[in-house]
């Protein structure tokens, strides 16, 4: 080729290239072949189901648009969560659309745990399992088949029972790391009851919690958050409830308490009995107790004298007396016990002690106390404790376990290193794991069969609490399965059929769906309810209605069961096994692994939303940390980010130090949930797992793992890392962003206030702004000329006395508004993107108060917005409805607006956002997907406002109050947020805005913001 020809060719290619670029790419419009009845393209449809992320059993409604799930909201009808949802529940979408989901069955080809797999077909995979099982059958070794499943709490349990029983194995077990066994055992001992226990938090007046983190991980956090909101500021309440939390590490729950009592870890029960002892001796006990009972209690608790208890628990005698006085005089009162308090060798003692406190104060079976109910149906599951797992481990080592079925259970992640569970697994000839993800336990098996995620499955679930409104939730698939996955029930049925013989006789159904229909028809339809529903009607429409509603529940709470007084001397066996006071020796520390509000026991770690969500107490994202008291850190010369080696007798891990005043100086804490060695790109190799160094001690009676009873030593490694956290300063200095008042002040404000909600509001004629806006400053309100002509001025009220700081709003916002995941490095450089964040401000050292204040910070939609006049291209401006709007395609990225925003409510896209497939399927088409170089911020969910306004326009009416709920408001578990028009003087938001606790953040800047906060009340 000569030079000329070469140039000609290059030239021609260039022209061709240029031509092809001119042409617009063809876009297709692909209609349905046969349109489904209930789908309108461009509109979302809601499908009711049940959340499976934790055992609470919240009802959900999944918004599906064009066959893709876009957003999960709480089911407003459901008795557990009443329309609310937590961060973990929101993230079920990222379980469904997770890029690391297993797509086909995988067969191990390398060594166990070496990570070498080959994809096999379902036929091959099932054949492998069936062959293995047949061999066991032929060798008469059917009892060598073991099954460990997550708790099922629904009729799927029957399928597992039938399969194992039919096959001839008694080893059908349920395992979860955070279980209720200790509490259940304690209730059985004290009350002789196995039924559902309910804590009526919403109606109690004094709450004393011993380590129960009911706002984060304990039992049903959304249910309790809703109840907590009402406990503080419920409309029907006479007075605000007072809350004291006793634990060694200030959890998020403790941070919401009026008083945090920091006690020696493991002495919770002793403190509870100390309080009970004082109540009895002072004669403050329940007047309903017989003289004999009082005498027996006094006798039983004679050891727990105040000075002894104070020595054991490190709580002063004054505090002890105060607790006893308040607990017995503020009626009704309620004591809770949970989490780290029970995860001790003396766990049962702790739980029984708290029960005794409730009994002595007369809190059993009353409104606002502890109540027991009969559920619709109890599902008997064979839960195994860690002690039993240890037993199975020994059987594995001795070769008694020939085959193991794992179902969504990940014991290898939770198992302390010293149990050497992996070695035992190696000794099992065949392990099959049924799971949607390659987690640690699946990675150690021979065959992994991919399951549908809950949003693709049928099922049902008994919730852990429902306030006495007996309920069962019903799950339906909301989208077609993404991959070649199966329902676990269908897999077991398939195996049973292939095995023939007796096991196949247990399964007369075609598939799990028909089984489920049959049991529901039998149980809820033919048997009928007490209210007679079900008789003489066709089942099909009844079933459809159940699916639409998301389950079956009573409209009203049933009558609590009557409880007989306990056998007091009989409790002596437990009480006399009180833990001995073991003072720390040498350089040891108490070590408390804390279940994470986002990752729970580690299951949430593969969801990028949850990784990026700042931990409420530390604002740390994407990793682990070691919480250490600043005084301790000072003594050991440890600074934030110093990599610390934490060693127990059983092993050592490393984590960066984070200095927090919310922990005792003799105690250290680490979050549970990180440190995965498998489980996908977002979880793997991130942080470290504190459970690995736990000393495997068990609770004596129940065999539960005492995961909070380990002592550790620490040493600096000399290495330093930058922690990816979102906090700037730890306190708000003197800025008064988050404000609080004392309880007395709040009462005084209420009495003095002339701002009675209705009277304070001006008439519709003349001034159109609520009184709050009509003060002296409102002459500066912009844009004034529009106020008269407009129909709406959107505003929000956030009650800081209800807000728990849980962060559900943040994740809900990510889901609704296509927020990108920026990653750990971006967070380190303050380049994360959040439209709403929770600020956590520690009090100044000069203040009496110990607990921090939480402040949800979002765009304040200022009337006088500082961001608007500085935009050179008019990309940010004020809408007639009072929204501060951002037009993304106008934005050129000067970032002037963000620099001028006093609330730091704006985020800039520094990097091109990435959504690995199929995460894109979750993106909402109702708003733009922003590129790098664009500024973005909260819009008050303008797409929801737009839809509501359009509906109203077509129906020729105004938007109804409460019709619009931005994503944060709709999720908020504690019901702390309200949204509506401030121009409508009877709207809920206007009425709330006339509360005397109201203020606006940085009001002196005259931004005339549309977000009105109500001050937190602290009753210390």
């Amino acid at each position, binding site marked *: 080729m000569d030079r000329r020809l070469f140039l000609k060719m290059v030239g021609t290619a260039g022209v061709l290239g240029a031509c092809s670029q*001119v*042409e*617009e*790419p*063809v*876009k*297709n*419009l*692909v*209609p*349905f*072949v*046969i*349109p*489904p009845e209930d*789908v*309108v*393209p*461009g*509109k979302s449809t809601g499908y009711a189901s049940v959340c499976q992320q934790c055992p609470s059993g919240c009802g959900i409604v999944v918004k*599906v*648009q*064009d*066959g*893709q799930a876009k957003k999960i909201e709480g089911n407003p009808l459901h008795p557990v969560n009443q329309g609310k949802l937590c961060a973990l529940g929101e993230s079920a979408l990222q379980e469904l659309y997770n890029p690391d989901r297993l797509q086909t069955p995988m067969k191990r080809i390398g060594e166990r745990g070496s990570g070498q797999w080959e994809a096999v077909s379902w036929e091959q995979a099932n054949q492998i399992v069936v062959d293995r099982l047949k061999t066991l059958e032929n060798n008469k070794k059917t009892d060598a088949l073991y099954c460990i499943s997550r708790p099922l709490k629904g009729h799927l349990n029957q399928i597992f029972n039938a399969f194992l029983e039919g096959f001839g194995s008694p080893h059908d077990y349920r395992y979860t790391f955070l279980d209720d066994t200790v509490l259940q055992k304690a209730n059985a001992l004290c009350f002789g009851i196995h039924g559902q226990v309910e804590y009526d938090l919403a109606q109690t007046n004094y709450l004393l919690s011993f380590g129960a983190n009911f706002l984060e991980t304990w039992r049903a956090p959304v249910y309790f958050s809703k109840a907590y909101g009402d406990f503080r500021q419920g409309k029907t309440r006479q007075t605000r409830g007072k809350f004291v939390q006793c634990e060694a590490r200030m959890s998020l729950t403790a941070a919401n308490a009026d008083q945090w009592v920091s006690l020696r870890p493991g002495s919770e029960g002793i403190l509870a009995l100390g309080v009970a002892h004082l109540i009895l001796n002072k004669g403050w006990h329940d007047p309903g107790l017989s003289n004999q009972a009082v005498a027996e209690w006094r006798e039983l608790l004679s050891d727990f004298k105040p000075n002894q208890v104070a020595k054991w628990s490190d709580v002063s005698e004054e505090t002890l007396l105060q607790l006893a006085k308040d607990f017995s005089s503020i009626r009704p009162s309620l004591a809770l016990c949970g989490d780290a308090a029970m995860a001790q060798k003396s766990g049962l003692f702790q739980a029984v002690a708290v029960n005794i406190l409730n009994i002595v104060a007369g809190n059993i079976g009353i409104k606002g106390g502890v109540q027991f109910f009969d559920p619709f149906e109890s599902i008997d599951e064979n839960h195994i404790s860690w002690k039993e797992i240890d037993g199975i481990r020994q059987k594995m080592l001795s070769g008694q376990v020939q085959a193991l079925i794992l179902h969504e259970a990940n014991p290898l992640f939770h198992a302390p290193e010293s149990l050497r569970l992996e070695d035992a697994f190696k000794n099992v000839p065949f392990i099959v794991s049924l799971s949607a993800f390659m987690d640690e336990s699946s990675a150690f098996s021979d065959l992994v069969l991919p399951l549908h995620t809950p949003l693709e499955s049928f099922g049902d679930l008994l919730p852990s609490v429902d306030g006495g409104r007996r309920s069962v939730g019903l799950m339906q*698939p909301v*989208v*077609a399965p993404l991959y070649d996955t199966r329902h676990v029930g269908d897999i077991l049925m398939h195996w049973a059929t292939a095995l023939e013989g007796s096991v196949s006789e247990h399964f007369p159904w075609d598939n799990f769906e028909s089984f489920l229909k049959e049991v529901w028809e039998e149980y809820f339809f033919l048997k009928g309810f007490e209210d007679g529903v079900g008789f003489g009607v066709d089942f099909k429409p009844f079933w459809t209605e159940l699916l639409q509603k998301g389950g079956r529940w009573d409209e009203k709470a049933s009558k609590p069961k009557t409880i007989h007084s306990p056998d007091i001397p009989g409790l002596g066996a437990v009480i006399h096994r009180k833990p001995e006071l073991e003072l720390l020796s040498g350089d040891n520390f108490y070590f408390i692994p804390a279940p994470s509000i986002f990752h729970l026991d580690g299951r949430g770690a593969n969801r990028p939303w949850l990784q990026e969500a700042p931990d409420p107490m530390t604002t740390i994202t994407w990793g682990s940390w070691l919480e250490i008291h600043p005084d301790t850190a000072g003594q050991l010369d440890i600074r934030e980010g110093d990599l610390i080696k934490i060693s127990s007798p059983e092993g050592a891990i490393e984590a960066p130090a984070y200095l927090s005043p919310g922990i005792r100086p003799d105690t250290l804490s680490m979050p549970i949930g990180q440190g995965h060695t498998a489980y996908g790109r977002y979880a793997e190799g991130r942080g470290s797992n504190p459970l690995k160094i736990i000393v495997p001690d068990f609770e004596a009676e129940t065999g539960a793992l005492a995961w909070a009873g380990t002592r550790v030593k620490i040493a600096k490694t000399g290495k330093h890392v930058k922690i990816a956290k979102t906090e700037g300063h730890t306190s708000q200095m003197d800025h008064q962003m988050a404000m609080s008042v004392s309880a007395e002040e709040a009462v005084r404000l209420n009495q003095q206030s002339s701002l009675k909600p209705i009277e304070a509001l001006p008439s519709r004629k003349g001034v159109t702004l609520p009184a709050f806006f009509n003060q002296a400053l409102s002459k500066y309100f912009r844009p004034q000329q529009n106020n008269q002509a407009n129909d709406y001025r959107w505003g929000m009220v956030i009650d800081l006395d209800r807000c728990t700081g849980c962060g559900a709003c943040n994740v809900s916002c990510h889901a609704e508004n296509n927020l990108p995941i920026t990653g750990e490095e971006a967070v380190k450089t303050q380049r994360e993107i959040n439209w709403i964040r929770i600020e956590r401000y520690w009090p100044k050292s000069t203040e009496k108060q110990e607990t921090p204040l939480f402040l949800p910070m979002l765009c304040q939609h200022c009337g006088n917005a500082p961001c608007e006049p500085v935009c050179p291209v008019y990309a940010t*401006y004020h*809408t*007639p409805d009072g*929204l501060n*709007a951002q*037009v*993304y*395609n*106008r934005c050129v990225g000067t970032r002037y607006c963000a620099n001028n925003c006093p609330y730091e409510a704006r985020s800039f896209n520094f990097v091109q956002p990435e959504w690995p497939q199929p995460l*894109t399927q979750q*993106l909402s*088409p*109702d*708003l*733009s*997907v922003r590129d790098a170089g664009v500024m973005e911020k909260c819009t008050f969910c*303008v*797409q929801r406002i*737009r839809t509501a306004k*359009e509906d109203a*326009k*077509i129906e020729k009416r105004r938007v109804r109050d409460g019709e619009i709920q931005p994503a944060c408001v709709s999720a908020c578990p504690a019901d702390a947020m309200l949204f509506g028009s401030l121009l409508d003087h009877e709207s809920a938001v206007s009425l709330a805005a006339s509360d005397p606790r109201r203020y606006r953040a940085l009001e002196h800047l005259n931004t005339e913001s549309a977000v009105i906060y109500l001050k937190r009340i602290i009753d210390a």
Partner: protein
Amino acid sequence: MLVVMTGLSDVAVYSGNEDAPSSRTQPVLFSHLTHSGQEKMACLYCHIYVERSSVAGVPSVQKCIGCHEMIATDDPEVKKLLTYWDNQEAIPWRKIYHLPDFVYFSHRMHVNAHIECSECHGNVAEMEVVKKVSSLSMGWCLDCHKKKEAPVDCNVCHK
């Protein structure tokens, strides 16, 4: 239970080209002239979502077959249609009117405000093959919004 629809939720980048690919052929040569001109079929007979949703909706194959199972079955284009139906395949129609992703447009609101289809789409009853008759530029939208005193606030259309 649910069918995944592509196309309606595609996340493509706006290329900025104003010219419609009207010259390109559709997979089936559907004639608006025949259907809405000669046969005087109402727009809503096929575009069934136009009053309810932001998108007007392209008729399902089932809808076409509703008539063409019996009518004009010898026509070569109808035969193509029947093949799609026999294979239970969707027809990948080519889009004539395309709006960029950052624009929100609702057919529902326009139809309910009594804007005739022809005001934007031209008189398709006279078109054998539909041509793009409006630029869909922001200026074009705003001209009409101003004339009819419809809202001109940025947030109404920009999402």
